[in-house]
Every structure is written in C-alpha cells, then in structure tokens.
C-alpha cells in the first residue's frame, strides 16, 4: 500500500515535469529561425512571399505563438502529437514505429554496462592492486575519453569488415524468413555492436564507481562481523558487500539515463539503427517541428521513467530509504 502511494505521487510529479518539458521545448524550437515553409520553398526551387504566407496559413503557422502552444498542448493531452509535414504522417505513428528500436538499444546498453561494470568493479575491488584492477582503470579511461561515434566506427571496421561476424547496419535482415525465434536471434545479432558501443562509455563509469564503493564497503564493520561469523569469502562479497555497494551505482545509472538516450542518437546514426535518433536527425534537417517536439517529448518520457525505475530499485535494495517516507 505504502509502495503504491509513493508510486502514485511520483507519477504525479512526473506528469507535471513532462508538461513543463513540452512547453519549454515548444518555445525553444519556435525561437529558432526557419520553419517548414522554408523547407518546402527550398524543395520547390524557390517561392514568392505570397506562396510562403499561404503555406504558413495552411499549417497554422501564422497564428500567435501562444495560440499555437495552446492547441499543441491540448492535442498532446489527448494523445495527439500533431502531423508531420515532412513525412506526411501523424507524429504518434512515426514515433510508435521507431521507439521500440531505441528502447531496445537503450535498455540493453544500460543493462550491459551495469552488469559488466559491476562485475569488473567487484573483481578489481577484491585486489585493488591486481592486474584486473589496472585493466579496469585503463578501460575506464579509454571508454570515457573515446568519442562514441569513433568507438562505433572502429567496432564496425573490426567486426563487420575485417572479421565479418556481425552485420554492418540496420536492425533486421530483410531477406531472412522465419518464425519468431529466427527474427529474435536476427535482431539480437544486429544489436551486439550498437549495444557494446553505447555501453562502453557507461561501463567505464559504473565499474570505477562500483570499485570505489565496494572497497569502502569491504572495510566496514559489518563485513568484519560477517567474517567473524565464519562465512565464506564469496558469501561475504556477493551477499553482504555487493548489495550495499550497489546503491551508488544504481543512483548514477539513473542520472546517466539522459546521457544514454542522447548517446543513442549518435550510435543509431553510425549503425543506421532505425530508432528515434535517426528520425531526430532527419526531422531537424527538415525543420519538421511537430516531429522534433514529439521526439523530445518521448526522450523526456524515457528519462523520467528511467529515473522512476531507479528510485524504485533503490527502495528495493535499501530498507533505510524504504522507511523514510
């Protein structure tokens, strides 16, 4: 019951936050010069002032900004994100087609980074001066300083061209026929390189943090108690220490959600991954305001949901947070 009440309250906050995001995005996008009329005129090879004004009137761009904002927010509240001028489709439909691919990439990258990062952190905390520890430090420095598109391109060259074990681009092999599992493994196969690329930045962060927090926990009094009970080393590390050292890592993972989403834009472009990122690039170039706004809305939603999940995960791990409210 307690849990449900907190969940409802957090969802309420999230809704208010989302509304603010919509309004701010709308204003910012409209402050930028250029609109769809410029793009259409450009495609037509030039147009007179009258034609431009006509296009603007057609799309309702001649009305005052406040009125436009009002009708946009009203639409969003009813689940209508507007119509894309450029793709000539409802924005909701456009995004619904692309969102799953992005979610798949973001979630697998976060999970990979968290699991491998924690694993490396634990191993290197056990022997802070051992070879694994130095390897993790090196990996962290590399992962953090290498630009994500460069990492992506290098992986592509290595594992798609020189050693062709992974596909070069896209999410599915269109020539492939088969049932659910064939498709599943096909997508998984395509997912490997983009996931590793996106995870590389965060893997480094998480493993460093996990190493530090694990070392701190291993020196604490309750670990000495666990040793005094005669528990085995693996029970001490995996049961008593790990659960305590995960909190900072999960907190950071939550904070990094927005960075993962924006990193996904770059990775999707490199690997031609059919997600929101490549859609964002196209719609920005086309000045397709409704699509841009829709993508920003969903990015914000992903980040907010990610943070919500982080909070819930922390609650599950630490009874002290559970009992606070």
């Amino acid at each position, binding site marked *: 019951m307690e849990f449900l009440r907190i969940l409802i309250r957090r969802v309420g906050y999230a809704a208010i936050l989302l509304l603010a995001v919509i309004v701010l995005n709308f204003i910012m996008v409209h402050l930028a010069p250029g609109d769809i009329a410029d793009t259409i005129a450009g495609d037509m090879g030039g147009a007179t002032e009258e034609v431009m004004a006509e296009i603007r009137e057609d799309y309702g761009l001649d009305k005052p900004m406040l009125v436009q904002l009002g009708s946009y927010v009203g639409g969003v509240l009813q689940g209508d994100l507007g119509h894309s001028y450029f793709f000539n489709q409802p924005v909701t439909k456009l995004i619904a087609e692309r969102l799953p691919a992005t979610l798949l990439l973001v979630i697998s990258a976060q999970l990979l980074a968290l699991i491998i990062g924690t694993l490396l952190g634990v191993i290197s905390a056990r022997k802070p001066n051992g070879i694994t520890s130095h390897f993790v430090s090196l990996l962290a420095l590399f992962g953090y300083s290498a630009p994500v598109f460069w990492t992506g391109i290098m992986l592509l060259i290595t594992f798609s061209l020189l050693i062709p074990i992974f596909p070069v681009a896209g999410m599915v092999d269109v020539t492939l026929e088969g049932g659910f599992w064939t498709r599943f493994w096909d997508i998984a196969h395509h997912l490997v390189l983009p996931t590793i690329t996106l995870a590389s930045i965060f893997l480094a962060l998480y493993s460093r943090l996990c190493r530090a927090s694990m070392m701190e926990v291993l020196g*604490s*009094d*309750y670990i*000495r*108690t*666990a*040793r*005094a*009970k*005669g*528990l*085995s080393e693996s029970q001490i590390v995996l049961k*008593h220490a790990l*659960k*305590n050292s995960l909190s900072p890592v999960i907190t950071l993972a939550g904070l990094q959600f927005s960075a993962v989403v924006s990193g996904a834009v770059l990775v999707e472009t490199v690997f031609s991954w059919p997600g929101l990122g490549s859609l964002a690039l196209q719609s920005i170039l086309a000045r397709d305001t409704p699509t841009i706004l829709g993508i920003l809305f969903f990015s914000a939603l992903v980040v907010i949901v990610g943070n919500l999940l982080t909070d819930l995960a922390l609650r599950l*791990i*630490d*009874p*002290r947070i559970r*009992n606070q409210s």
Partner: protein
Amino acid sequence: MNTHSGTSAPALLSVKNLRVEIKTRDGVVPVIDDLSFDLPEGGNISFVGESGCGKSMTALALMGLLPQPAGRIAAGNILFDGEDLARATDARLREIRGNDISMIFQEPMTSLNPVYTIGEQIAEVLRRHQGKSRKEAHARAIELLDSVHIPSPQLRVDDYPHQLSGGQRQRVMIAIALACKPRILIADEPTTALDVTVQAQIFDLLTELREVTGTAIILITHDMGAVAQMSERMVVMYAGRKAEEGRVRDVIQQPRHPYTKGLISAVPHLLDTITDDRPELLEIPGIVPPLTEFGRPNCLFASRCDSATEKCQAARPGEIAFDNGHSSACFYADEMQP
C-alpha cells in the same frame, strides 16, 4: 562440550609466546610481542590497557582476522582445545569462527549489515554452522532474540538494524555470537559506544548468558569497573606486551606493575568500593609510544614511569611470578607498595 572434564585437561585456550607483526610504512612492527596466557573452560579473563596497546589485535589474532595483507602471526601458538589456530588453514578457521569462538565488537551501530533483517543475520550463522534449514534457523533466531531480552521477538525478527537502538543492536550481536553455543566469546569493548545505563544492562546480560551457557568470555576493555564485575582474571597490556597478569582482586589490591597502578589510580570509585581510602585521582603522564618503538629491547613503559632506572632503559624485564598466577613484567615488581 565437556570432552575434557574429569581429567587434568589442558586449558581450553592456551596462548604461548604469541608474536603478531604488522607491516607499516616504517617497517615491520610487533604489535603483540611474546604474549602468553591460559583460559580454562568456562573461564573469564579481561584484557585492559590504553588504546593502541594490542588488546584488539589479540582478539583479532585469536579469530584469525588480522588485517590482511599487512598482519601476520610471526611466532607462537594459539592452542584451542589442543589445536594450533596460529597454523590452521583459512577453511578451518572459518569453521571455528562464529561456531566455537565468536566475537562481539565495539560499534553496535555499524556492526550489523543495514540491508538485511536482524533475523536473517542471526539465521545465517545457524545455517552456516549447524546446517539448519531456513525455517528452523528463523524459528531459532526468534528464540535467540528472546534469550537476549529483545521484546516481542517474533515481530522484531523482521526489523532492520536501523529500526533498533544501539543497546538493542548490541543484544542482536550477542545473539549472533552465541547462536552456535561457542566455547569462547570475545567481547571487544562491547559497551564503549553505549550509554552508561545500557552498559550495565549489557554486562548483566553477558553475565546471565555466561551462567546459562558456560561460555568462556574474553573481555577487552579499558573500563576497570567492568573488569571487576565480569572477570576472575585480568591481563594488563602495554605497547603490545603483557605488563601484568593475575586474579582481578589481587591485581587491583596490589598491582605489581607501575602501569597497572597508574591505570587504577586514574579510575574514580574503584578503590573506594574495596577500601575506605579516598586516594587522589592520578593520570599517567605521556602517551603510548609510537608503533615504531614497539620492538625495542627495553621496558617500553620506562619513559612514563616515575620509578624508572637506567636498567629499565637498557633491558627488557622478564616476568616475575607471585602467588595465584600473579605475574608482572617489571624489574621492581617485588618492591611495589600496595
């Protein structure tokens, strides 16, 4: 439990010439230097001394929990029921820890794992050493909480440590330590972090449980009052060495080492309860020497001692024995005035 009863059995625990070394930046330091003592089955012994005298190190050495990789047992034996723990494997030590020898610590506030229920933390040690099932261990955990006088144990068993007071947490630590009916309980300053009233309750509880279980208790403390209440024998440690050992009554009435004498005169009321005198409260001037001086071949207390002579600066005093196993590592132990 009583495998040796009836025979002239060796002591339950017999520490012989124990030397523990710690690697520091300034070199290897003997934090425990030539320590010997015996503890009979069901006996009680206290270790006293200032901070940094090697009391806690002694406890950790007995448990096989010396800080790694800096600490090691360099020489001597720790004979527990005839088995030398100083040479035992890690696996064997893990079998003994929490089962035959348990320990409670100074900081009850941080000694329990914050993310597991206290019931789980008690049950865990039962599952580890007695092979109990989850259900049995949980039921036994409730009984143990009851035995350390936690009210409504069947409700509190699912509490997390942060829901308990310091005194209650120390009771839980005692429940964990006594869960497998150990033959020795090491209590390392178990009440230092607690309120005075709670301190008395914890000592009462330990006394009560000792009578019920027959567990031998090694109490490490700098509270002379606690020593007088809890123990039959005491060892006074100074700079990693045994300064004096004997029955508590003998040592307090007639200390045979100037350091012991200093410790006693620094405690109010202690003598008042035994004699009618109201001696002045005195402090021991100076501090425990730095670790780097621990290995020196002289009396390490000489720099703080009123009656130190050149001999004290030149050579390390051996043990002089008196009645009832009373002994002192002072050249002038014979001449000390009570």
